[in-house]
């Protein structure tokens, strides 16, 4: 009897989150931006997940605007992770909202504007070879704190 209990306990203790990537993904999806960044530093599996799985980042951007057309546009322009890093995060900070607030409601105009800025950024990178500007040049730089050149 005691042995059976111990077996069950061992079975319970041997549950290891990294063996269950689907559950891991579901959990990571619910994190806010900074936490997701921290999660990326935990181990190789988590790092590769946060880096490669774009759907983890989708929930940070415009969760309330889930139309297929928006998703197609974002994917075409570089994906949700890039959208978050390059556009949503600076916009949020400028609008005065903390990144930790996941449940922010985006107005339609804010969404449109962010997507437009994101698109311009992508376009600039398309033309980068032509202009041979450095990769950090971006029309979204105004969203970052100005650095003395």
């Amino acid at each position: 009897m005691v042995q059976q209990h111990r077996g069950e306990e061992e079975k319970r203790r041997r549950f290891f989150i990294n063996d269950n990537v689907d559950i891991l993904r579901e959990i990571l999806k619910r994190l806010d931006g900074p936490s997701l960044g921290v999660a990326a530093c935990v181990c190789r599996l988590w790092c590769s997940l946060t880096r490669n799985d774009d759907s983890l980042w989708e929930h940070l951007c415009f969760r309330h605007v889930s139309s297929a057309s928006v998703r197609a546009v974002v994917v075409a322009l570089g994906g949700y992770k890039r959208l978050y890093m390059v556009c949503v995060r600076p916009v949020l900070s400028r609008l005065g909202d903390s990144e930790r607030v996941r449940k922010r409601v985006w107005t339609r105009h804010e969404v449109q504007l962010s997507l437009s800025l994101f698109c311009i950024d992508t376009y600039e990178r398309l033309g980068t070879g032509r202009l041979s500007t450095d990769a950090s040049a971006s029309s979204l730089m105004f969203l970052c704190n100005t650095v003395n050149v």
Partner: protein
Amino acid sequence: QLFSPVRNVPSPQASSYNCNYNYAQGMQGQSLLGCSPPRFSSSQIGAFNSSHKGKGLSPLHRVFNSPNNQYMQHVENLSLPAIEEFLEDYQGYSSSKESSDIASSSECFDLSSQIPPMLDGLTMPNSSRYHDDETSVHGAAAGSRSSQISQESDMYHQMGSMASASLSQALQQERYHEKQQKQQQENLMLPIPIGIEQEQDNGLQLVHLLLACAEAVAKEEYMVARRYLHHLNRVVTPLGDSMQRVAACFTDSLSARLNATLTPKPSKLTPPSPSNSLEVLKIYQIVYQACPYIKFAHFTANQAIFEAFETEDRVHVIDLDILQGYQWPAFMQALAARPSGAPFLRITGVGPTLDGVRETGRCLTELAHSLRIPFEFHAVGEQLEDLKPNMLNRRVGEALAVNAVNRLHRVPGSHLGNLLSMIRDQAPNVVTLVEQEASHNGPYFLGRFLEALHYYSAIFDSLDATFPTESAQRAKVEQYIFAPEIRNIVACEGAARFERHERLEKWRKIMEGKGFKGVALSPNAVTQSKILLGLYSCEGYRLTEDKGCLLLGWQDRAIVAASAWRC
């Protein structure tokens, strides 16, 4: 022929700053012409009055509203007597006509209290009555002119009591006194630049020197102008604060103008342009990235076009100056995100060189491809004056939009009418027009100079606030984008002057004269612009609306005006 627009009454703002630099436009015999006051809807007035205090005002504004110089409310008009004289030569200006219309603005009339022309006015009133800190410099120079000072004081008192009396009398008196002093004027030494630390006084001094010099140039008193330029060159520096930098640009332009008039053979006024066009592109990119002006222009125009294309399946946009095509990615994205799917999009880009336009077209095609938008690009490498209807490639069954951002002002007046008629004949659904909001096309040099000084002071001030201090990028922007504009406006005449900015009112008249009707920009455009401006870290940008058109400005000076038209 494009003239400066005429305004009847100064804006109802009580601020002295806006009421001044008025001069009569003889053409239509109307009285006052405000150089600087933008027209804002009355709801904005309260906001502006409160913004008069504190830093971040345009340098000229700060200079004129500094609390030290209460007399400034008078002296800022000190250009007026001289200008009046100057204009008298030109058009038989009648004071009586002016008086009835000026009546509303009492501050303008304090000007009629005799202010001697700038030469004297610079130091004398300072020392005589109003300055709290008595600087001995003034005292020394005042020795021979104390009689003048007492004269002025008397006149001030007189004028003060007369302010309510008939204005024409006051003006006549003023002219009389002025003529008295005019003889002494010729022999006077130029005022010694004051070494006061106060920024406002330095700025004031710069402005006065610039205006005096410009006036001398306008009157073709070249020796006097040279002396002023000499002083200016000692005082201005392209490395100082925004007022000094703007003054440096204007000083260079005045020198250039002087040289152009005096050298017998026409010398090409080539501004210092960067060696390769790549540099120019990069600098344009800097302005595009850091300041909201261009983004505002693009986004507002895009919104108007997008709404006009609401239910269309095949759309065609003609961009009259496509440059790098930065306007169109956002537009394409909006089309792609449409619930009804993206329409078939054609863009016809017009630019000075065919290769450049084709390159832009390649990038746009690539973007459209990744956004899955059916897309076609057509390049036209012609000057707008040479544009023919068949180049526009219009097809039946498509909705057409014509986009003209900051380009139409360069089209010579004689060709502009034809161009607009041609555009109208293409039956576009919407024509979007965004232009710099300034009146830089007046026939009189001095008026243009004043207007440009106000306008570019505001712009330089906004650059100062937007870029970090001592920024090399800002210096590049100022040197390669705005300084050439200033130079062109100040130093060039005739066909060589292509920066012919006009105000929104003037564009309205032009468009309506060609059969276009204004389309009010939607609340969506307003909201979008507000959010866009909210993303910028510095506080001075202001959005205003004027009869359905949007204007973006810095503090209280409108910089860019956007409007939409249909026919």
